[in-house]
């Protein structure tokens, strides 16, 4: 497989992940993650570890599944009415961790996230990175990290309902 083919396949996969979030197909979105996946949105810029510093999100697949289950059952005032979201990915790059067939690879992109809910639209810019585990012709996400440019802004953030 050429570099262009790999890049194309990874990019299509990342676009699919974004689309599942945007279309609110959250169980299908979660199915893209490995059972041991980590989903991390650090609080500090260039944060080194989620263990010794607070995070905006630091979740296992089990915690993500609890979050999504809650959103999908629509019992929470937090998510009623549901937010409409768009994920925009640009600057997609692929770094192969190893040249071995079937080895994990890293992808990164710039992320723009726009959310509309209850008469308000807000947006976040950030840098996303993924550790991808090949599964046949496809991939699974073993880890995703999103660094928001304003993660640590002094005035804090209004609540986040839907993952980035």
């Amino acid at each position, binding site marked *: 497989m050429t570099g262009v083919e790999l890049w194309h396949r990874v990019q299509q996969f990342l676009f699919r992940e974004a689309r599942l979030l945007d279309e609110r197909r959250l169980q299908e979105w979660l199915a893209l993650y490995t059972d041991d996946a980590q989903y991390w*949105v650090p*609080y*500090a810029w260039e944060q080194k570890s*989620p*263990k*010794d*510093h*607070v*995070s*905006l*999100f*630091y*979740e*296992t697949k*089990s*915690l993500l*599944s*609890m*979050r999504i*289950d*809650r959103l999908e*059952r629509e*019992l*929470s*005032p*937090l998510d009623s009415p549901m937010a409409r979201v768009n994920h925009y990915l640009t600057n997609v790059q692929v770094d192969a961790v190893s040249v071995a067939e079937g080895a994990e690879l890293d992808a990164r992109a710039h992320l723009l996230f726009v959310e509309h809910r209850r008469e308000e639209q807000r947006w976040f810019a950030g840098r996303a990175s993924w550790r991808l585990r090949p599964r046949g012709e496809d991939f699974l996400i073993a880890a995703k990290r999103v660094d928001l440019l304003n993660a*640590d*802004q*002094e*005035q*804090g*953030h*209004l*609540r*986040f*309902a839907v993952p980035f």
Partner: protein
Amino acid sequence: MREENGSKAYAELVGRGRVHRRFYTDPEVFAEERARIFRRVWLWLGHESQVKNPGDFFTTRLAGERVIVARHADGAIHAFHNRCTHRGAEVCPASSGNARNFVCPYHAWTYRTDGSLASVPLDQGYGADWRARMAGLRLEPVARLASYRGFVFGSHAAEGESLETYLGPEVRAAFDNLVERAPDGEIELAGGRTVQRYRGNWKLQLENSIDLLHPRILHRSAIDAADRVDHGGQPPSIEWDIVKSNGLTLREWDGMKIAAMPGGHCWMAGFLTKAIDENSLQARYRKMMVERHGERRATEILAFNRHNTIVYPNLFVNSRVAQIRVLAPVSVDCTEQHGYIFRLKGAPEEMFEASVRMVNTNNSPSSIVTSDDHEIFERIQQSLASGRHEWVDLSRGLDDEDAHSHATVGTNELPMRNQHRAWAQYMAASSP
């Protein structure tokens, strides 16, 4: 509201078992709260572990005003306004660090870490009495500064009761217990902070944190989601436990002990699930505590089972999980809530990691628990203006209220009324 009858009129916003909606919605009331409450009382600034060494400093807000807290070369801690006495620029933009001097970026007026003015460029241009005038151009000190067990408080009021008197014995016990839970008897603030913002009045959070009728109802979606998690034979995560712990029945919440104290302070008993207390990490920690203090004293320290101790008007202390939250009101309809964690010196590092994960779960803007609270606060703020009905009801438990016996059943709204009585007392007095 006219100034001449203002004080009386403010106090009248708090009635028997009810408060007027302007208590939450009137910008003029908010401005007066700042002057009469937040500029008068002791407010938490930080912890001495943030300024361990000479030159260490951090910046924060005190009743909305920007201040620097620094440890000077002689070891004393100082707090002063982050505002150059020359033209008014912020002299220290960093959130924390170590500095020999604070140098204003505009004209290089240079201050020592005790706030005194050390030098200015071309000082011959300021006239013959410049040396004498320099003493009066130090960074303006915060009017009063005091520490209790390493917790640093400041007050904008030059006069008033001592910090220890202000806190009172039952609040001091929460700080004592937080320090005593460290096997080495020492704690340090670490791990950054969370900042949740909501578009509602600050008092909504103050009430909510002692409101035991709401968790089972408002947080139902999170509790139900936790109930449906399949752990696959693995022990549940600390995050899951935190969410699940809200799932007591209404009857169980009603059976919890709460207490209201003079000055508007209050506390509630602990309610975390047994899983959080009865695991191998806790067993290891308990053994360390027994080795240090002996069985009897260790048991006494660990038996102190409170959730929030709420220090009026804006601080929540939880010694059991080594956390502090503080409310920073921004405007009448916007509030920040800051969450901080402490590392217990001598305890297993995994306990600190568990505290980090607990704060992520409860006090990150992504929290599936407190985000529901904040959503409700925003809806209250939006809806209060509607209709002709002027009052908000806080009458639960009013009939059997003994204003000064203060321990009562969990869902009694006594602690909220106690907060608002303190509010009315502060607001009835003119500003300091």
